């Protein structure tokens, strides 16, 4: 607890160097970013399939919303891919 407060004060004092001791952490980054959208897309398509199984005559409308949901969720995963390319720091 004392260490945590010390660390927070250190960061709050405006230190500009925070070094990660774990090497190769950058390679993990997109993998972590893809967890959420992966689950999300699975949910979107899974629920769409279930809905189409329950009521096949609504398949057209369900398909439309399925693609919209897919694109919105995929956007987050793709932001994770694309953002590292134009962060210059």
């Amino acid at each position: 607890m004392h260490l945590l407060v010390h660390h927070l004060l250190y960061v709050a004092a405006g230190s500009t160097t925070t070094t990660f001791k774990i090497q190769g952490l950058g390679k993990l980054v997109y993998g972590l970013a893809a967890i959420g959208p992966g689950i999300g897309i699975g949910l979107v398509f899974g629920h769409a399939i279930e809905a189409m199984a329950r009521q096949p005559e609504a398949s057209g409308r369900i398909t439309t919303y399925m693609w919209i949901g897919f694109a919105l969720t995929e956007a987050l995963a793709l932001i994770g891919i694309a953002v590292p390319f134009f962060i210059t720091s």
Partner: protein
Amino acid sequence: MSDAHLMTTAHLVTTASGCHFQSKPSCGYPAPSIENFFFKPIFTIGSYQFTKPILIMLLSAAIVLLVFWLAFRSPKLVPRGIQNVGELGILAVRDQILRPQVGSKGDRYLPFLVSLFFFIWLMNLWELIPVAQFPATSKFAFPLGLTLVVWVTYLVIGMRHQGPLGYFKNMAVPPGAPWWILPLLSPIELLSNIIVRPFTLSIRLFANMLSGHLLLLVFSVATWYLFSATIGLLFAAVSFIVFLLVFLLEVLITLLQAFIFTTLTAFYIGDALEPAH
């Protein structure tokens, strides 16, 4: 940008020198990077560089204009020939995109949405067409410009239909929301409608096209790089098969991203026409 030119020429030197998988002066895989998205200008006027993405954008606009102009040059009640194609496009956008999001009262925005949809779709499609093979929308400027147009459009529509201050008041205080949730809801609503929507709209299209192009680059360069008279031939074949699969995926994604952009535009316009309920 001088570094970018050096990088692209370095890539060209590597590729032109026959550097393959197990060639004797051993060289690594020339990995595609962000540098592949910067082009040497075709010509320069002053400090304005006319590059390949700009050419692709102008071609897309010209083709869309040409097709629709030809289709409706002398419209007949019973359509013949290319008028069928034009009508198909317009009715598809109206019935699949505009009407489900806005309803019939949004029909006056149909020309805008038709142009938007086909322009974005065609700009995306250049990723797959053999000579060009670059989606103009993977340069952030193009989705950003389109998003700014859409953003100003729905803000102006909202202010015109609900009054300049009434629009933002209805956004921050949705009719029917209990008073105790407003401190949480109002900042979120304002931020979401004014900042987050244009941001995600532009970056969704941009990131999709960027990653698609990057994937195609990775596998096509890998096919070329692995293509040598050793076991590399098998690797190159596998890489080519994956390239074809990614190509098929991109056929879907180009259409889907144009559809999503236009659908969300229609939704934001419909949202601006009347207060959220």
